[in-house]
């Protein structure tokens, strides 16, 4: 969320003709950094999903043991 939010704000900056470090990074060397950012967001998202599932299962285990 944070990463995508900062990307959007960076894009708005670009339209105003100011160049932020992030925009520069995203346009550099054939735009590979954009791909890297996209895949990094995906991996972060998937990991977040794993962590959430893990927490839910942990909570269920705790409930079960109390019974």
């Amino acid at each position, binding site marked *: 969320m944070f990463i995508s939010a900062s990307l959007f704000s960076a894009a708005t900056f670009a339209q105003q003709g100011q160049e932020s470090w992030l925009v520069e990074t995203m346009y550099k060397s054939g735009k590979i950094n954009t791909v*890297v950012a996209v895949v*990094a967001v995906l*991996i972060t998202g998937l990991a977040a999903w794993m962590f959430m*599932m893990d927490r839910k299962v942990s909570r*269920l*285990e705790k409930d*079960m043991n109390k019974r």
Partner: protein
Amino acid sequence: MKGLWWKVLATLLLLYVVIVGLRTPLRPAIVQTSVSRIAPGPVEVDVWGYGTHFIKSGAQVWIENDSQRVCATSVAAIADDHLRVQFTVPSGLRSEMSDLAVFSERDGLLERFGAFFTEGRGAGIATQNCVTGKSLRLAILEFPNRDILNESIRNLFFHVPMWFTMVVLLSIGVWKSVVVLRKNDPDADRSAAVAVQVGLAFATLGLITGSLWARVTWETWWTSDPKLNGSAATMLIYLAYLVLRGSVPEPAKRARLAAIYSVFAFSFMLLFLFVLPRLNDSLHPGNGGNPAFSKYDIDKRLAPVFYPACLGWILLGVWMYDLRNRLLRLQHRLSDANDQ
């Protein structure tokens, strides 16, 4: 959350692999020449590079034939990746194949082996010294740029760990199966089944990614290769394991049958993936006199990303196994509690 540290480690490792694995540049290379045959007399050759800096740092160019050199008479940099070079090829070059060599301070020595078929051969020429200056190349991390593979060499960090993860999960499966045989433990039986399920998921991903990669490098989705057929046979054997489990309704009997089958399946997996491909010629790296983990296949420049990638994917696989296993255990306990 139990085991939080290694789950965080898995996430960080995979992020590192994506960022460094995709961003690290390839070693510059000479990828194409406009001429593939040279004969005595003047010749003009267009040379295309990849990731090179011809305009920024210039280039010295020569033909290398059996360690004898013919320097270029003129070199013009048209773009950072494009040179126009003129040679006066002497007659009497010894070898049938000539290499093209390009040197620049920025990129160092770049060679295209066997670039030219050579006509007008003879007993040799007076060699020339074409290089002045030293390479100022920085020893930064870069990946090898190999013919045919090119940028797709990065697939190493994604395709290969799928199979390593599968092997780890199937090892967990056979270990749990042995526990079933020794202690008759229904918990271990469920773990064994989950390990095989998650292992097969990774094998499927390995198969699809491998097929895609093969299309680009070998020009075919599938070829009758010992490693490829071995991995397909392994998957079928393990699919049969799941079918076997589904066809025996009685839990205690199912556990013992599946455990015995799993030990056999694991032995066949070892045979199909690690023994037979090494006894036969294979296109696939790591086989038929072409062993993996040698200087050819796992270049030391790839290691700083490849090993973390293996660890990261294996940890993710074990995490998925752990999660599914705990979920099914809960389900089992819940249905037990309802029965009482």
